[in-house]
């Protein structure tokens, strides 16, 4: 796991035993599409998305009933120089919906948190702005609060959703 993904996971802290958080782990190094060799596609797309799918399968096998996938917001916004990483991010966000639809009848809820670029270290000058409007908040933000809530009993009726934590850029 990259240090940034590990840091995001550490910030979230301990979770109930029936809960599992999957932090999408992608490189913060931009690679233009014309320069994506097969080796780079393998490292930047194939391996990270397979990790997400496998972690969700493992959580299911372990009997978890609350699952949250934390994924970079660039899956929703797109990002120049990060086409492979954005593909992972959006695929992770949507496999959550498949999981929610498929596992709902087992009492399992699965949701996604889309986290802003700065938490993942993407170069925003390369990637481009997420929104036409500036970020509403000035302080740093964390996925901790929303993930903890999604793993609580209070969130048991919420599934297949994406919660954006980006200080109010994407609206």
């Amino acid at each position, binding site marked *: 796991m990259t240090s940034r993904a590990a840091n995001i996971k550490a910030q979230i802290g301990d979770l109930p035993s029936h809960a599992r958080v999957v932090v999408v782990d992608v490189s913060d190094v931009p690679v233009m599409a014309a320069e994506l060799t*097969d080796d780079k596609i393998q490292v930047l*797309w194939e391996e990270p*998305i397979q990790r997400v*799918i496998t972690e969700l399968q493992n959580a299911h096998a372990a009997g978890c009933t609350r699952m949250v996938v934390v994924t970079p917001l660039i899956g929703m916004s797109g990002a*120049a120089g990060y086409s*492979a990483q954005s593909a992972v991010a959006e*695929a992770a966000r949507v496999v959550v919906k498949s999981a929610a639809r498929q596992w709902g009848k087992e009492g399992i809820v699965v949701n996604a948190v889309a986290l802003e670029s700065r938490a993942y270290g993407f170069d925003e000058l390369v990637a481009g702005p997420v929104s036409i409007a500036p970020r509403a908040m000035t302080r740093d933000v964390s996925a901790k609060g929303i993930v903890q809530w999604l793993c609580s009993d209070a969130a048991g009726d919420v599934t297949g959703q994406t919660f954006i934590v980006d200080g109010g850029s994407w609206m």
Partner: protein
Amino acid sequence: MTTHTGTRLQNRVAIVTGAGQGVGEGIARRLAEEGATVILAARRAETGEPVAEAIRAAGGIAECIVTDVAKGESVQHCVDETVRRHGRLDIVVHNAFSGAVPHLLHEASMEKNWKLMSKTGVWACFFCARSAYPHLQESSRRSPGEGGGRLILITSPSGVEGSANIALYSPAKAAERAIAKSLAREWGPQGITVNCIAPVAGSPALAIAFERNPDLKDAIEARTPLGRVGDITKDIGSVALFLASDDSSYVTGQTIVCDGGSFLGL
């Protein structure tokens, strides 16, 4: 079949992957109707050649180049051969996709259920992008501000909504939308547009689904405001034509859901 009398894509050269049947065939036919030279990149000549022949018989210009989109060198060959024969490449439509068979997420195997969808869907997007990029850039240089390089990716409403029945189909299709947005940003300064179409149309894949589930057709028509399944040429091909033509020169990074109004969640 409609005769080839239109001129909106005259002198443009297009590659359509997976053009031997279904949505790809419909798009190839529609682009050819409007004057494009269409290269049908089909995995099997048995499917690609008859479509090319039908287009030629109706007065269009079409050739089949056998292409396995899961292999980067095969995509590169298709692009190189297209440019060698026709001197340019303006439009790439990546439609080919294989492996979308029903499976449960918790039972899915990376080798059996995921690999083919990832390769033909997502890897192939990257292959098409990297091989076509210099030619799409050149196309935009020839006609700045209007009809330039075009990359069109065929995704699915399932790539937005998720799927309970084909769980890993959805993330593969979602990835294509994200790639389109990222490339729209990356290639916008070069005048290349990148968009997606999310169709529901009478394709062979849908015909198989109807066979498996006889109630599915009625169910789709009942939930669709326009009350029918889309036609591959008239309904889906025409949207591809819009995205390939000068009419869409200020549209990029978008997904047009072309499903008769069934999905209204964007």
